[in-house]
């Protein structure tokens, strides 16, 4: 029974650990996604920008506009708006960037994903850890059972000795 309890406990602990690990893995930033064109899309879809834009970029193909003074500063937001304005001003450049995103970046993302799947060591390590944990748990349970048996034998021997001594007197 100790064996069974030990195994059940270890299976439970393993499932909990896997669950926690999986949850952590899910919470981590994902590997390169299958939609790598998201960043350049800012240039063509200004409304889809991740953060609220302080300045509405001009529509694609519109003549270059001068960004407001606060966005021309060397802050990340200012630089971003400067870049967006420059990209939107040049339709050929926009097309070139989009083509790059849809070919090279997508290819790289695919490659990264494939590498993650091909060299999936964490599941292999987890599987082998489970095998050894359960086996060692079983061995420990068996050893403890043997120790308990040894104790029972000792107690039986003492009781027998006492009983024999009592009957002889």
């Amino acid at each position: 029974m100790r064996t069974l309890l030990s195994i059940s406990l270890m299976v439970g602990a393993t499932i909990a650990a896997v669950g926690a690990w999986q949850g952590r893995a899910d919470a981590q930033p994902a590997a390169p996604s299958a939609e790598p064109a998201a960043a350049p899309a800012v240039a063509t879809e200004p409304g889809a920008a991740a953060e609220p834009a302080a300045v509405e970029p001009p529509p694609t193909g519109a003549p270059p506009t001068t960004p407001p003074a606060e966005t021309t500063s060397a802050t990340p937001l200012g630089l971003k708006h400067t870049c967006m304005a420059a990209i939107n001003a040049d339709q050929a450049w926009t097309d070139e960037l989009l083509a790059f995103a849809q070919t090279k970046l997508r290819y790289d993302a695919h490659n990264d994903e494939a590498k993650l799947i091909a060299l999936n060591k964490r599941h292999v390590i987890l599987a082998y850890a489970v095998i050894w944990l359960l086996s060692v748990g079983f061995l420990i349970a068996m050893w403890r059972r043997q120790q308990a048996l040894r104790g029972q034998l000792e107690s039986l021997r003492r009781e027998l000795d006492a009983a024999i001594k009592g009957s002889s007197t």
Partner: protein
Amino acid sequence: MKQTNSPIVPALGVVATLGILATVWGVFVATPMDRNLFYSQKIFYYHLPNAFMLFLSVFVCGIASIGVLKRRDSKWDDVALAAAELSVLYGAIVLATGSIWARAAWGHWWIWEPRLMSSLVLWLIMVGYVLLRRFAGPGSERLAAGLAVFGMVDVPLIYYGVKQGDAHPQATVVQALTGTMKLTLWGSVLSFFFLFLALLLHRVQVAAAERETRELRERALDAGLFA
């Protein structure tokens, strides 16, 4: 407890340990990466031998249980109990490693396909056997023996379930093995077989010693020694 001093169990344990160490080298160094399942295929080298040992322990338990039912011999009962506990261990390993491999290969921890379902049912039957032996009290041997025979019938269903077009990968993985891969797999099967034998013999000895201790105490009580 005389049998506990037998050198067979330690010898089998040493052979199994050496074999398993060799297979670890074979799995992670000698074998190439599988073309379809990539690195996660390396789980297979230990998953399949443990599945074989699960089947073997269930068979041993079933056959010993038939001995219990026919001859009412307590030695058969010791073997059946030892094999049942081992089947619970191997079942837990097979289900856990299979689930991890399924996550790596299919993207799911579990899918409701015939082989997985029947393996789970088999494991639950063997857990039921051990619980019955623990909690049902004296006379539960024969009831548990019937359950073990029922579990033994489940083994061919699991084995042939893979040939009926289910989604389990083993049907294709075994065929795709090359020379080193086959050697590593069968070396692993052999090593786990020796480990199974060592554990089974040791557990049988402990079960026999527990039974003898219990019987001695009962005889001493009947003789009025512990009044």
